[in-house]
């Protein structure tokens, strides 16, 4: 009996019961966000955070770099836009269409490319992304309106007879979805499935020897990431009221990579922090100069020099290395 209580004590010491405090805390901050910065900027931050959460699951937790993630974002945006524009579906259905379309695309790309690794996978995903871009640009011009983007999607945005036309209403609608996605992500990361993703990232060979079908792990991670991408794209359509062609362009893929790395890949809040810093700098500096990229780029270089693992990543490393030293000292005292 004594041994049983020992084990219980050990379990709480090695891993305290996980609590989603980080999710609810973040939600509180986000509730207040539009009172601090502009509502459109806040909304954009939420949308890109959802995109980043999914991208981080793939890059940060599974260790797979996709350089064509615009495909999921863009396809989600177009599918939702087309469904709303041509079939006159309500916005929730429109979002669902965008999500499903992007997940199907992820299944397709996954089935073809998942056995490739590292830079090969990055290149193949980039190729698929660009394929989609050019398809929307020209062959499907009749439907997608090519270079102009998909405009005049809806007259009014209504959800259960509540108008989302007011920017703040839309913001809180997107916030609700963001909080759900934050919580979902948190659950996934705490679950055996999430641990399995990390096992794959840490050591694919060993994960195989543990009995994991690593190809399947990677596939599921990609599809899951596609879900987030599609959702973010669809929400972007609601937010902008149209779909710019650039949502499929490789720059969009590059932007999400940059945001995630800047914030700290493989950390829970990394995407949110990266997105917020990126968009805030972009919005602020572009007020003063049309050459904002130059200054934003320079600032990024400085940030990455100070935080090589991304902002949250480096903070986490610092915290962990302190904790390790403490634990080792404690063990040494004990002996």
């Amino acid at each position, binding site marked *: 009996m004594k041994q049983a209580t020992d084990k219980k004590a050990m379990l709480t010491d090695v891993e305290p019961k996980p609590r989603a405090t980080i999710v609810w805390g973040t939600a509180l901050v986000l509730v207040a966000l539009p009172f601090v910065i502009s509502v459109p900027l806040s909304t954009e931050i939420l949308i890109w955070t959802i995109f980043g959460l999914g991208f981080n699951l793939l890059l940060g937790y599974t260790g797979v770099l996709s350089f064509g993630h615009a495909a999921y974002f863009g396809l989600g945006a177009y599918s939702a836009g087309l469904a709303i524009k041509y079939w006159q579906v309500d916005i929730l259905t429109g979002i669902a269409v965008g999500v499903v379309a992007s997940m199907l695309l992820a299944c397709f790309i996954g089935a073809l490319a998942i056995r490739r690794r590292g830079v090969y996978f990055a290149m193949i995903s980039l190729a698929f992304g660009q394929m989609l871009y050019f398809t929307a640009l020209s062959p499907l011009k009749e439907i997608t309106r090519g270079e102009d983007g998909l405009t005049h999607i809806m007259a009014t945005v209504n959800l259960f007879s509540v108008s989302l036309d007011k920017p703040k209403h839309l913001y809180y609608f997107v916030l609700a979805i963001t909080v759900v996605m934050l919580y979902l992500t948190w659950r996934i990361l705490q679950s*055996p499935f999430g641990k399995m993703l990390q096992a794959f990232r840490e050591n694919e060979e060993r994960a*195989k020897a543990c009995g*994991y079908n690593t190809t399947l792990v990677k596939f599921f991670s990609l599809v899951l990431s596609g879900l987030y991408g599609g959702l973010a794209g669809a929400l972007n359509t609601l937010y902008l009221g149209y779909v710019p062609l650039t949502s499929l362009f490789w720059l969009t893929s590059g932007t999400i990579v940059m945001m995630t790395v800047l914030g700290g890949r493989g950390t829970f809040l990394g995407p949110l922090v990266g997105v917020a810093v990126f968009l805030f700098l972009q919005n602020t500096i572009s007020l003063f100069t049309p050459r904002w990229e130059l200054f934003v780029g320079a600032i990024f270089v400085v940030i990455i020099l100070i935080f090589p693992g991304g902002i949250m990543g480096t903070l986490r490393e610092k915290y962990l290395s302190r904790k390790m030293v403490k634990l080792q000292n404690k063990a040494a005292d004990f002996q």
Partner: protein
Amino acid sequence: MLLRTDKVSKHFGGIHAVDGVDFTLRQGQLKSIIGPNGAGKTTLFNLIAGVYLATNGKVFFKDRDITNLSLHKTSRLGITKTYQITHIFPNLTVFENVRISAQSRNTAFNFWRTTHSFSALNERALDILEQVELLDKRSLLASTLSHGERRYLEIGIALATEPEVLLLDEPTAGMSCAETNLCAELIKKLNKELKLSIVLVEHDMSVVMGISDEILVLNEGRTLAEGTPIEVSDNEEVQRVYLGEGKACSA
């Protein structure tokens, strides 16, 4: 027979790394494969584990043909390998390293319940850490462990999959003589107390002498000798091949 190979061969281009070797392992047996560098020990081992596909011959586990099964499938059947070069999950805690391996059996695709709430799983992970003497280090990141501790963690990760056959690839590689002897004792303990069938690949003959039930000596991809430790060490061919070998840690 728990595990056997039937004239199994592996050729890499013109190199016959393993050439028609018959290997057998009985339930509960601790069997070692030894031989000088390049003898084909690790290749044979990887043929059994499912890392390589055999060029010729077959591998059987409980009379089931497992020749062409991949690594993760043989692991699921109950044959788990460790690595000569340490393969752990460096940025996770020691505890998580073992738990990730333990969860692979049934809960892996659950994405909603927290891993923390599977209490049997967590307790199993602690039990295994106790077996490989790493319980004190459970909260440390695996990357902060010493080399010897990592080798033990490696064994712990393999144990967590609840194998029937444990394949150990030079578990004492890079250890000092004192560490090597302790590790040999641990392996014997796992064999006796957990009734685990073990295949041990070793470069150093003296390690396996004290603990093996049987030894298979390979040289240039073929069987040179097979038998009890005494039979093998009395064999003149074996003595000739092993003449002038370096490190010797007699237990």
